[in-house]
């Protein structure tokens, strides 16, 4: 199989070579399969500071690149702009698009992509056909088994030019105030709705601060207004890759557990011994999470 990969960093308004390099490395490691013969890589650069995502020139350059080899599979890195560009270009070229892909595998009957379906309660394998578009999930993990194998790469650089036709104008940007280092934190405490009240959740935050570790929450907690969305762990939030995670009053709904798959040691505290979280935990405490937090404080 031959593959096109598209790499860009359009949101920051200036070329950041280290980010482009990181994305390329991630894609190449993910595609490190002995039966992937040739990789054609398109790297997009900005010509001036601008908001490039909605410029028609971006999609045109990507479409031209794909059309040179219409039977090759095209892979995008699944961050915000990769998702936006990949899905947009697949619609404009009328190609089938697989989003949030966590794996690409060769089966006897052909290539398959793997992705989480039904809110991460199941994995689904879908046939990957010639010419289709794949957008990797940022949660995708990959084998480093063949790390030293370098597939043949043909690199193309294109500089974008502003056309100014788009109807979307950026007027303000602000960094996420509560942005944490959840994804890279070594130790994380997570609270769920089992903590019952905002006050109890605040105790968990105090405990994390006292211990000098990061804290996160389930989506249900954020929906209740106890914590900002930036702290949500799972498919609609952050993916953890650290050493230890302790969950307090988290039942273990699949969308949250999907964000814990990179954790090396999971400790769960819940009153319900049958809670799904214990199926994924290394250590379990059947007990009152609130009382334990108070004891730890």
């Amino acid at each position, binding site marked *: 199989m031959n593959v096109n990969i598209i790499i860009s960093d359009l*949101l920051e308004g200036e070329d950041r070579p280290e980010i482009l390099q990181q994305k390329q490395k991630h894609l190449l490691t993910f595609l490190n399969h002995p039966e992937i013969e040739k990789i054609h890589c398109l790297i997009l650069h900005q010509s001036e500071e601008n908001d490039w995502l909605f410029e028609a020139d971006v999609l045109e350059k990507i479409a031209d690149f794909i059309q040179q080899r219409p039977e090759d599979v095209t892979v995008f890195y699944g*961050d*915000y702009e990769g*998702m936006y560009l990949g899905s*947009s270009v*697949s*619609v*404009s070229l009328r190609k089938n*698009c*697989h*989003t*949030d892909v966590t794996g690409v595998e060769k089966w006897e009957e052909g290539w398959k992509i793997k*992705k989480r*379906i*039904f*809110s991460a*309660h*199941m*994995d*689904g394998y*879908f*046939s990957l056909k010639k010419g289709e578009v794949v957008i990797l999930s940022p949660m995708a993990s990959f084998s480093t088994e063949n790390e030293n194998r370098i597939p043949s790469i043909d690199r193309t650089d294109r500089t974008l030019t502003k056309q100014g036709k*788009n109807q*979307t*104008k*950026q007027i303000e*940007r602000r*960094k*996420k105030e509560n*942005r944490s280092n959840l994804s890279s934190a*070594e130790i994380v405490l997570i609270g769920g709705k089992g903590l019952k009240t905002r006050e109890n959740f605040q105790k968990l935050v105090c405990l994390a601060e006292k*211990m000098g570790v990061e804290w996160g929450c389930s*989506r249900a907690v*954020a*929906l209740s207004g106890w914590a900002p*969305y930036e702290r949500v762990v799972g498919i*609609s*939030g952050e993916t953890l890759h650290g050493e*230890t995670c*302790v969950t307090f009053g988290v*039942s273990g709904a*699949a969308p949250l557990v999907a964000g814990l798959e990179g954790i090396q*040691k*999971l*400790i769960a*505290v819940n009153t319900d011994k049958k809670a*799904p979280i*214990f*199926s*994924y*935990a*290394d*250590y*379990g*405490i*059947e*007990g009152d999470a609130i009382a*334990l937090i108070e*004891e*730890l404080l």
Partner: protein
Amino acid sequence: MKILVYFNITSDYDYVLDKEWEEKENLDLAFVKKIYGCFDEGALETALRLKDEYKEKNIPVFLTAVTAGLRTSALMTGLYGAGFDEVIYVDTGEEKTFVQKETVPYSVLMPILKEKNPDIILTGRMSGGLDERMAAPEFAGKLGMPWLMDGVELHPGKQEGEILVLCEQDSEYILYRQKIPFVCSIGNASHGVLRMFSLKARMEAKKKKITEVAVSPESADSDVIFQTKEKKGVCQWMTGEKKELAKQLKHLIRRGQKEE
């Protein structure tokens, strides 16, 4: 101003036991509580809040909600109580398989979208079939509209026909000024839960009819092969008094070695 929200009704998967998921394609979710798709609920509430803001400016807004696939009368008529002006159900006929029941071929909605000719189309980021996140780009591409991804808030702009759309990106929020018409997928909406409404509004909503449109879908069969998620292994239980448990827990957190 015409705003259309495409939403899905799904089974609440969190209430499905692990052993039920092992049924895979034969899974029967008829008994499971039905809910709005989680991001779709945010899209519905975002549209209602935009309508409220236009109401303060004395600008009329007609809100349409469209769904297909699973149908639950209470969830559909409830939208009238919340403030929607029209609720449409697109009937694709009898769904046979588990996947067909739980997913929606959103291509069937195109005739409705064209007929309604909305200024803004909102939909939850995951809506559509099998968590594809492709409904918004598909609608935009087929209708020739621009689209924005992962909106969290929409507000009226200063000029007529302009909307301020706050989008959540990887590390920041970006506020865009967007001319209508456009499509926007809603992600972690600032108001992600549909508003409560009075019993009176609920009773009145029940009297209103859902507009039904029958269509013949393209083949929705998928070659998907299901696999239940792998469990990590055996959980090692920690027991003892509260103080002892706290001590053990602190020890585990601090030591950091997996095999103690």
